[in-house]
């Protein structure tokens, strides 16, 4: 069932991309199916957990599973960060004529005026004039927000460990609120970039890497916030105790992971 949903989702998305009207329908259908299966699947796992069917060994399996899932996510971002470094360290200088025995010799003939600098939209000035995103406005604020959300989620964990339910719930609510604030601010930043700065996906390599990296990160923040919201509702229903709270820990790990990725983004995409 989950596969059917996933299939319908990606199939629909692909059909939409090539301009078929039915694409959107299948995409939405697939997404709903996928979410439905997830709810059913995880719901069953939660119920089994509540009935105490899981021994420490099973819980350990879940932990290892989550750890390696996050490891694969790390590599997904490593791919994009690696690309960014490659563009900045190699491609732009080559396009500017560096390395006369290699690529630079040809590109310099093609684009003799190109100055290798960052940010850039490339020798052909793809997308026209644009203004790069500064680091010390919204991005700095967002850094503060995510860092404090990392602290609040840990505070919630401490609350859970000493069985202080109000602290646990408050910590979760604060974390989710900060996460949402982050997403809203980023949406505003994107809107600003598109409408006033000429900074779009089409703005050459700077726009491409900027939106790819921050966009996938924002997507992960959204998923993390949804994950934490589910945890919050479970907490309100009295789930979790100081010894058994794998799902909370998994959500917290995931949250710290998106936090760390953001630090990388702030330094390499916005700041330097």
């Amino acid at each position: 069932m989950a596969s059917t949903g996933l299939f319908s989702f990606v199939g629909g998305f692909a059909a939409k991309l090539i301009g078929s009207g039915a694409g959107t329908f299948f995409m939405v259908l697939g997404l709903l199916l996928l979410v439905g299966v997830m709810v059913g699947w995880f719901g069953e796992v939660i119920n089994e957990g509540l009935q105490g069917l899981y021994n420490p060994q099973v819980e350990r399996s879940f932990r290892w599973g989550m750890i390696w899932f996050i490891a694969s996510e790390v590599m997904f971002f490593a791919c994009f960060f690696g690309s960014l470094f490659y563009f900045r360290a190699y491609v732009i200088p080559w396009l500017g004529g560096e390395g006369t025995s290699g690529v630079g010799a040809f590109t310099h003939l093609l684009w003799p005026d190109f100055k290798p600098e960052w940010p850039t939209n490339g020798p052909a000035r793809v997308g026209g004039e644009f203004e790069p995103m500064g680091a010390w406005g919204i991005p700095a604020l967002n850094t503060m927000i995510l860092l404090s959300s990392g602290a609040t989620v840990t505070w919630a964990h401490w609350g859970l460990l000493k069985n202080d339910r109000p602290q646990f719930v408050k910590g979760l609510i604060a974390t989710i609120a900060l996460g949402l604030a982050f997403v809203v601010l980023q949406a505003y930043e994107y809107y600003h970039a598109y409408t006033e700065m000429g900074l779009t996906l089409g703005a050459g390599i700077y726009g491409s890497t900027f939106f790819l990296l921050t966009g996938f990160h924002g997507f992960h923040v959204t998923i993390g916030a949804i994950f934490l919201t589910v945890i919050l509702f479970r907490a309100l229903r009295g789930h979790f105790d100081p010894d058994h709270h794998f799902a909370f820990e998994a959500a917290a790990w995931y949250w710290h992971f998106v936090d760390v990725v953001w630090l990388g983004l702030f330094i390499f995409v916005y700041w330097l």
Partner: protein
Amino acid sequence: MATVADTHGAEHEHGPAKGILRWITTTNHKDIGTLYLTFAMIMFLVGGAMALIIRAELYQPGLQLVDPHFFNQMTTLHALIMVFGAVMPAFAGFANWMIPPMIGAPDMALPRMNNWSFWILPFAAVLLSATLFMDGGAIASGWTLYPPLVLQFGDALPFTIFSVHLLGISSILASINIIVTIFNLRAPGLTMMKMPMFCWTWLITAFLLILVMPVLAGAVTMLLFDKFFDTSFFDAAGGGDPVLFQHLFWFFGHPEVYIIILPAFGIVSQIIPTFSRKPLFGKNSMIFATAVIGFLSFIVWAHHQFTVGMPVPAELYFMYATMLIAVPTGVKVFNWLATMWKGSLTFETPMLHALGFLVLFVFGGFTGIMMSQAPADLYYHDNYFIVAHFHYTLVGGGVFAIFAGLFYWLPKWTGTMYDEKLGKLHFWLSFLGFNLLFMPQHFLGLAGMPRRIPDYAVQFTEFNQMSSVGAFIFGFTQLLLVYIVYKCVKGEGEKASGEVWEGAKSHGLEWNLPSPMPYHHSFEGVDIQKAVADE
């Protein structure tokens, strides 16, 4: 089963569910292993049929059967289907069937996810095959999907990319499951260093998959953005670079070929000791060699791109790093040979295939060393020499190991011996057909015949004809394999004992179990501690 106290509740008492639902909803590692293997077999035949179209066209110079665009679609899909649809799922099938019994576990650690990781595959295959029937046909850029060429394909592109995404998700989920199973579900006393080689090689394979599949997903996502969302990742005009895709692809692609070959090493490391009636020689060094190969696979990728215009220091680095791989691989090969040294050898079908693997893989390895030299590679690049090289390693290595493993464990799975006469026939026809198919391609390549072109100069005709005849022999021999497996599954043949192979008990926990293994709880009534201690 009923004689042993079952503390796991009534639902485990009954056997498998009936009918098609059993296969759709199963969370049983044996069922899922069977699904993987069946899927792999079907895809192997589909991908094989595409290869035969290619070889039929190449039987004569000139254009006879298919037009060049369709020819290129065939080379592309043949590769994608064989790599992602046939070989990888086949090894995943072995992992599912054999890792739990080898480590004394009742099942995989995350059985529901196991079901999902299989069932993503057929949908990915449908998505990929459907592109054949779209406007403009399937992707025809070769399986490496290099831009800017690949960005010129129309409707097929997003479907192919999403199919790759699905395959990636499936592999990552399966790998997580395998790692968790091996870390967490080993029987007490079965330490990591005591674990069978097959589990070790799969453990390292799973790490490779988890680390490189997301990079491929990222790279094809960037292709998708370049095509549909205006970005300039692979477009120099916007400050991007098409060569970056090659770096990302091969950062995935090189570990990927080890993902294919490491489980093959594992299977062969199980088989050779059994039929030599000796323990595996230098097992610790085998484990370290596997780990070193896994590590090296991450730092040699650009030897696939020697001709792309990299800076000279980079070429030198990748050349030297690549040659290093020969060291751990040599350790493995010599260990296998030393295992056989003074053993009391017998040559049943699995052993024949394992030896076939050894010969063919070493041959493919040697041609690999030839191509690791950057200056020489300028001449080998993109011609039939490389085609011959990677088929010797991936088919001669990977697929022959799959055959070996299949004959080795089939009696354990089904409780019935396969037909030994037909098995041997299958080996010899495959081995001869294979060599007739790919050996001449070395000479074609050295003489300058380019790959991925449906036509060639007349002086290449004889070697191409030999190659095509070999292809049809090798291809149709696989129908014999289907028949042998079918007969065995039907139960036509001698009953297999629990140990199956003489003295096999000392070579793996799985041989302490009855054949076929019980559907649930393989180890019901078996003293695991004693079995572990005996090993």
